[in-house]
């Protein structure tokens, strides 16, 4: 019978980083994935913050496709607001090759001592005297059990491990973006900015992204809030967008992908002998849908906590809770704030978004101050003041909390 300190289910970014840091802290770690190849299929827009540079989790640079100078945001009537690198870099810094990115993180996990098993699907948890004690898996038609003191759910937005552990991980349609994307080649369009297109007609409750990967290659996709969608709508709307876009319409599609992104509040992430990390923990940002940075930050914390638990040989919820405490300190407030901002933005009609963009289009974000921002917003469109009240209340509240 195989026995590990920790089994990590899912070798996406959250799983590989958790495995790496758990192994580095001395734990005996097994990382399993149901797919035959890590990083494939790519379920992502492939944008990540340049903050990743500081964390030293990835070596080399072959996972980087392109570096962004900033972001351009188009309102429903195509008024453009440009965010410089300094303003946008926190969210969109690099466009990456997600397959290479994921493989590099898995390589690091292996280098740190974690064992990897592919084509190995978790089908249930082992329970001994009501305690979770490992994972039942299927591998090439064979079923067997692998024991461990900790099981880590890194199995994505449709997490089964969390469910088996008793956590309600079902996402409501109002908290889920349903996504469709292409990789296009032979595109003649500027390649220095990430572009975002808003509008209820264009992408209800979401946005269209246009991310340049360099040499005429683009990742172009759409997210539509599932509660505002209808069968096949994301694909139909993206096809329409591309057909009407001067640069993209001549592009050649070489890859088509679907995906689902949670824009929900985080779920509980700790139980006795169980941790949830990454999308399984609902750690994607509610405004951007981005979940790479929180997967990396959360995975590191989870790995370190597993190391401590192994050292103390204590795996109950009380001990593992330091994982939840620590991720809340690092990005918990931001996730909650952005969830509320998402709710406020959903209430804004296209007219309000157009007014916002018109007020901001000439604003110098480099000289940013709250007062100058409010002035810029309200001088041009005084009615915005009422519409933005909930946002200002929120910003006052977060100041009080600091």
């Amino acid at each position, binding site marked *: 019978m195989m026995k590990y300190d920790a089994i990590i289910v899912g070798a996406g970014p959250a799983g590989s980083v958790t495995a790496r840091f758990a192994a580095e802290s001395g734990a005996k770690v097994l990382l399993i994935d149901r797919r035959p190849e890590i990083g494939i*299929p790519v*379920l992502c827009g492939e944008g990540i913050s340049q903050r990743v540079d500081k964390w030293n989790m990835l070596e080399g640079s072959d996972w980087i496709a392109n570096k962004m100078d900033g972001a351009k945001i188009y309102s429903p009537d195509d008024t453009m607001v440009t965010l410089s690198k300094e303003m946008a870099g926190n969210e969109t810094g690099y466009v990456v090759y997600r397959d290479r990115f994921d493989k590099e993180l898995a390589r690091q996990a292996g280098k740190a001592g974690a064992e990897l098993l592919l084509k190995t699907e978790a089908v249930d948890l082992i329970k001994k005297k009501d305690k979770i004690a490992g994972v039942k898996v299927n591998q090439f038609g064979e079923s067997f059990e692998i024991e461990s003191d900790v099981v880590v759910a890194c199995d*994505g*937005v*449709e997490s089964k491990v969390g*469910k088996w552990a008793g956590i309600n991980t*079902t*996402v*409501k*349609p109002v908290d*889920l973006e*349903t*996504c*469709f994307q292409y990789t296009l080649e032979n595109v003649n369009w500027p390649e220095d900015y990430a572009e975002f297109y808003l509008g209820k007609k264009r992408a209800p409750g979401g946005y269209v992204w246009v991310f340049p990967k360099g040499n005429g290659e683009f990742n172009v996709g759409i997210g*539509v809030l*599932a*509660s505002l*969608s*209808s*069968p*096949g*709508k*994301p*694909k139909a709307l993206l096809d329409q967008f591309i057909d009407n876009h001067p640069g993209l319409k001549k592009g050649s599609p070489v890859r*088509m*992908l*679907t*995906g*689902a992104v*949670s824009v929900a509040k985080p779920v509980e992430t700790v139980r006795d002998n169980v941790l949830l990390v990454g999308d399984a923990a609902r750690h994607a940002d509610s405004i951007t849908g981005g979940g790479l940075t929180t997967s990396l930050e959360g995975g590191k914390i989870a790995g370190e906590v597993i190391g401590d638990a192994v050292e103390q040989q204590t795996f109950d919820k009380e001990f593992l809770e330091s994982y939840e405490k620590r991720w809340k300190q690092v990005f918990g407030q931001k996730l909650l704030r952005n969830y509320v901002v998402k709710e406020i933005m959903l209430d804004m009609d296209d007219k309000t978004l157009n007014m916002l963009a018109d007020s901001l289009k000439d604003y110098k974000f480099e000289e940013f101050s709250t007062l100058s921002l409010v002035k810029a917003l309200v001088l041009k469109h005084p009615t915005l003041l009422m519409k933005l009240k909930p946002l200002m209340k929120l910003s006052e509240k977060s100041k009080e909390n600091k």
Partner: protein
Amino acid sequence: MGKPKAVVNVHDCLSCGGCVSVCPVDAIIMKNKVAFVHSEKCTSCELCVNTCPVGAISMED
């Protein structure tokens, strides 16, 4: 005659798992790389039908 149940068109499914995530009764699993609906569990709520980005799920008797 029961209510119509969700059925996946296996030729159109791109296996993103969005339907699995929204199903309130865990009636959908990924099987052989496509979504599969356990029709005995399906409550005919149609959430998965509207969530599918390529329209690969429909309600059938």
